[in-house]
């Protein structure tokens, strides 16, 4: 290989290299556009129409959105997901953080096995988890009801109107604690130990170290788990869909906005309104995630 060829390759290569780069990302981008952007745009388009038996499809501007904003079924569903956000997400992430800190501290016997055991539920598909917990809650042969009966107590109806949201929260928590714990644990492991060796020598306790050094250091990982949990909880579908069979009245057709959109599209055949609901839901998720990110950034800046 002579020097001239090398120079030749380098010289004329910037444009050629750009083409090569585009060719690497092109296959993904094509599928991305086709499977993500096109449906998104189509959904936005659909949401601006109304289809009626008489008169066919009409352009109605934002009427579907107006309808959604006054639709108590949709609003209650969003409210229920907001309840998830303020109860289930903090409980789940709080426990995940506690487990991660405990397992990282080295004070737990059998920490490795415990970590795997906490993660294992995440390997269970959401459908199977919902199905299994449905049986565990059940009054027929659920062990919880059996235990109550054995003690001579009346078994509670865990899938009653009032309890079903708690029952759902428990399933989601069971499935996702381990996932969040692993993210946080990995972040904790990446903190250089020098950061808190000094504090330890100064006599700071584990809790003090966790609070003032470890938690602030894994802020970005915490934010990630918060954002993922927001996206996840607003999209709730599998669990209520499966529990519906066991408790049709408690779940209804609109337990979560996603379930509502599904029923609108496939039971009521109202795809236009379903598209508006799905779009609005995406919008809510984006806003909540964005606000969360922004407030975290502001807090980080204030702390710095």
């Amino acid at each position, binding site marked *: 290989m002579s020097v001239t060829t090398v120079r030749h390759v380098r010289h004329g290569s910037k444009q050629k290299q750009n083409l090569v780069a585009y060719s*690497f990302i092109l296959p993904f981008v094509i599928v991305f556009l086709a499977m993500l952007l096109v449906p998104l745009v189509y959904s936005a388009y659909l949401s601006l129409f109304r289809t009626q038996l008489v008169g066919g499809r009409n352009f109605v501007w934002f009427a579907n959105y107006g309808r959604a904003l006054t639709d108590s079924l949709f609003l209650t569903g969003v409210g229920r997901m907001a309840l998830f956000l303020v109860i289930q997400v903090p409980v789940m992430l709080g426990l995940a953080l506690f487990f991660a800190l405990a397992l990282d501290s080295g004070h737990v016997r059998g920490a490795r096995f415990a970590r795997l055991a*906490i993660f294992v539920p995440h390997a269970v598909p959401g459908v199977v988890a919902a199905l299994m917990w449905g049986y565990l809650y059940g009054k027929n042969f659920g062990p919880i009801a059996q235990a109550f009966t054995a003690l001579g107590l009346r078994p509670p109806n865990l899938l009653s109107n009032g309890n079903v949201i708690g029952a759902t929260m428990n399933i989601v928590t069971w499935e996702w604690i381990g996932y969040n714990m692993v993210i946080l644990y990995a972040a904790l*492991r990446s903190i250089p130990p020098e950061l808190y060796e000094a504090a330890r020598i100064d006599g700071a306790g584990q809790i003090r170290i966790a609070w003032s050094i470890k938690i602030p250091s894994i802020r970005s990982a915490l934010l990630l788990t918060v954002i993922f949990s927001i996206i996840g909880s607003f999209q709730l579908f599998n669990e209520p869909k499966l529990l519906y069979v066991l408790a049709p009245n408690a779940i209804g057709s609109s337990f979560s906005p996603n379930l509502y959109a599904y029923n609108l599209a496939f039971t009521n055949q109202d795809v236009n309104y379903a598209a508006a609901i799905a779009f609005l839901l995406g919008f809510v998720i984006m806003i909540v995630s964005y606000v969360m990110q922004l407030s975290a950034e502001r807090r980080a800046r204030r702390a710095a």
Partner: protein
Amino acid sequence: MTATDPRSQVPAIPSSSPSRADQPPTSSRGRKRPGSARSTVLTVTIWTCVAYFLLPLVWLVIASTKNNSDLFSSFGFWVGRSFSLWDNLVTLFTQQDGAFLLWSLNTLVYSLTSAFGAAFLATAAGYGFAIYKFPGGKAIFSGILGSIMIPATALAIPTYLLFAGAGITNTPFAVILPSLVSPFGVFLMRVYAADSIPVSLLEAARIDGAGEYRIFFQVSLRLLGPGIVTVFLFALVSTWNNYFLPLIMLSDPKLFPLTVGLAQLQAASEGGGGAEALFSTVITGSLVSIVPLIIAFLYLQRYWQSGLATGGVKE
């Protein structure tokens, strides 16, 4: 590249190093931690919580050894009068002319195809973003990253309508095509490629006269191995677990994956109507469907740990 020794090959996450995270805490980072530092209170607390995570699965295992009447007559966490696991398995695999086996095969085909496709697309794109600077690269990448926010289920309804127009609903393609897009995979591969492929190596290959594609296939791909496996696993699991998409796309029970099939079985068993035996069938089916996943997760834990670690540490 096998799963036997990924430890030496996970340079992508130098700061989080999942291999180190895997060792017992006493030896990690060479820190000295006297055994007396182990706290009984903390250990008992953690292990009590571990029971919460494992008991439902223990129940599932025990329940799948019972026949339908034992389910109702014996305590959930104790064995029934007869050991019926084998009978349950036979019923499971022979009901509806062997539908369960068909569902398992469907799940396997859908998730393997999607995972191969997703890993290939994400690897090429992530590599492109990491190695080359080109106009629009940053903007396109942020667009891809931002799409993680879009609720996947919000896309499912318009995708269904588009597929219906194209006549591909109720075919395997309807499940596989949307599963090929893994924005998180692109992100992961970009981080991984940037960390694991030394620029000097690329320069040396170029000076030797190797073309960019040859460098990718013969040099870089090998270094990217563990990252590719991670993306592959994530895509595999998410397709394996997907319920919403196949639920709306497929109407022929012969095309159902395990998730949709099991949900249908459960609905049938709750519906009753002389089909009482189905309870034990659904329970056994649930157990059978999660066993391969749990084994795969435990066996390949380093990969998913490195994947999650990259997401968490690198923001």
